[in-house]
């Protein structure tokens, strides 16, 4: 298997607080990887750093053998790393279809013309097809702001896939999706993503989903990696059981620290 992404000693400091410390993760092509950890453990910070939203205090991010540390978000996207968001980042006053069309227009790296219509029949068909993949084509004409959270999550993820990324980060894809729909939701999602050879890293709080969909799992705690390995082993790890899975139900004071709280949402 070829290494797609590798981080070396990644560190992120907000004032005196470490949001990430010595984070070393390797992701291979086509791999599916679940990330667990309590709120404020540094999961989103990790994604933010790799996708260029945050510049790490120190450490390196290597993508396909090239250093991408500190590059702009848009450049990283063009290299084939995309992401979805915990809170969907969409164009709320526009219909779903137009959201997708904008994403598609931007993703086409053709020479842009100032005065040629960017959108034609073919592009619309492509957008509808993408929406069908995620089973949300019936919402195509509705405004984002009128949609339920679950559909928004799917649109958000669908938008992240239009550029046909090699590596896709999903930040809590099932948050906001009701408990009994979560499994079905993930099934649709993973099925849609499996059609391509995309490597997927998803952040998840529900251990059942992690067990079901990802063969490998990484556990974060207070900015560091607690465990990294096959999912069943990680979930059995004592430290993981104590600090991650256990703490899902009672927040420690550090978790409520405002800096990190703001970081999460």
């Amino acid at each position: 298997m070829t290494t797609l992404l590798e981080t070396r000693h990644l560190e992120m400091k907000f004032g005196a607080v470490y949001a990430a410390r010595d984070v070393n993760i390797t992701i291979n092509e086509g791999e599916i990887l679940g990330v667990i950890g309590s709120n404020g453990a540094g999961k989103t910070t990790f994604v933010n750093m790799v996708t260029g939203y945050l510049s790490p205090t120190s450490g390196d991010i290597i993508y396909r053998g090239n250093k991408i540390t500190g590059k702009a978000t848009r450049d990283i996207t063009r290299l084939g790393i995309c992401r979805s968001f915990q809170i969907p980042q969409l164009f709320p006053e526009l219909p779903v279809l137009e959201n997708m069309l904008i994403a598609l227009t931007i993703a086409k790296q053709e020479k842009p013309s100032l005065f040629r219509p960017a959108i034609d029949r073919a592009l619309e068909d492509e957008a509808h097809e993408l929406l069908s993949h995620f089973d949300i084509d019936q919402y195509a004409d509705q405004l984002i702001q009128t949609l339920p959270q679950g559909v928004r999550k799917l649109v958000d993820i669908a938008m992240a896939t239009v550029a046909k990324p090699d590596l896709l980060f999903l930040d809590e894809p099932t948050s906001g999706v009701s408990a009994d729909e979560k499994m079905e939701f993930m099934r649709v999602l993973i099925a849609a993503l499996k059609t391509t050879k995309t490597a997927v890293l998803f952040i998840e709080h529900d251990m059942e989903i992690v067990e079901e969909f990802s063969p490998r799992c990484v556990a974060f705690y207070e900015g560091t990696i607690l465990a990294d390995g096959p999912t069943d082993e990680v979930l059995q790890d004592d430290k993981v059981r104590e600090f991650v899975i256990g703490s899902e139900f009672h927040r420690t004071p550090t978790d409520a620290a405002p800096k990190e709280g703001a970081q999460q949402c």
Partner: protein
Amino acid sequence: MTKHLDRTEIGLLVALPLLICIAFVLPKWIVNYVHVSMGTGLVALGVMIQMRAGLVSFGQGLYFCVGGYAAGMTGKFLGVTDFFVLLSAGIAAALCLSFVLGFLLRRYREIFYAMLSLAISMILFGLLSSTEELGSTDGFNLPTASYFGWSPTGETARLTLYTLTCFIAIGCAIALNRFLKSRVGYVNEAIRENELRVEYLGTSAHNAVHLTYVVAAVVSAIGGVLWALPLGHVDPEMTNWTTSGQFVFVSILSGTGNIAAPLIGTFLLEIIRVYAVELSPNTWQLILGSVMLFTIIFLPKGLWSLITSKQKSSKKIGASAPKPGE
């Protein structure tokens, strides 16, 4: 195929001969308001395309003024009277200035974009107001335009200029309609809605804003030239914040839904003002303010929404999928 011309563009093309015809049908004074409204309307268009990206320029008068002054100075100091040279001078000046200033402004959003554009336009206002060579606040007069060596006078000159203005204004409107539907146009919509996502989709919001700023500047400068030539006069009031403010108000009142809206809105507002002044020369601002207030309360999406809401209801019956961007 209609693939290349959307409804708005067909409408504009149909409007062109009608617009030219009214010069022969309607009384001269109304034609005159139509004429100057095309100039200021283009500036409102410039404001409107920036508004599509969520950016409100409170200093668009800057390019209105740059266009007018560049044309005027070309006439005054180089003795050129050719319409197309004067127009090119206005465009070139706006292009250069906006390209440079764009590097600064593209970093700003919301009220800060508004205030910074205002500050820059007011600096120009200050500079022009204290330049006696350019007539200070009184400004200076422009020559009567000639066309490739042909120098019409009197009524012929007026009609020639009017016809050309119609062509250029409609041409600009169609070009801008295309611009709004181009890739950059869609990126702008996306910037207005969620700039973070735009960056994550892999394109530079800064570049799109910069480009839009330049396009808006050029169209405003064209407006400035087209406004100044029939008037034969420019003064720094063109870049004063009150002038820029009016452009913003026209764009909001007309609505950003359609490219024709600001052009029509400019003219309508002008006519409302004329009648308000006639009705009550001492308190016309009160009437204008009330009209604006009622428009905003009852038509928050601008006057154009009167038209689109009608369309939507009729469309429901046809049950065709709404085309995006129309």
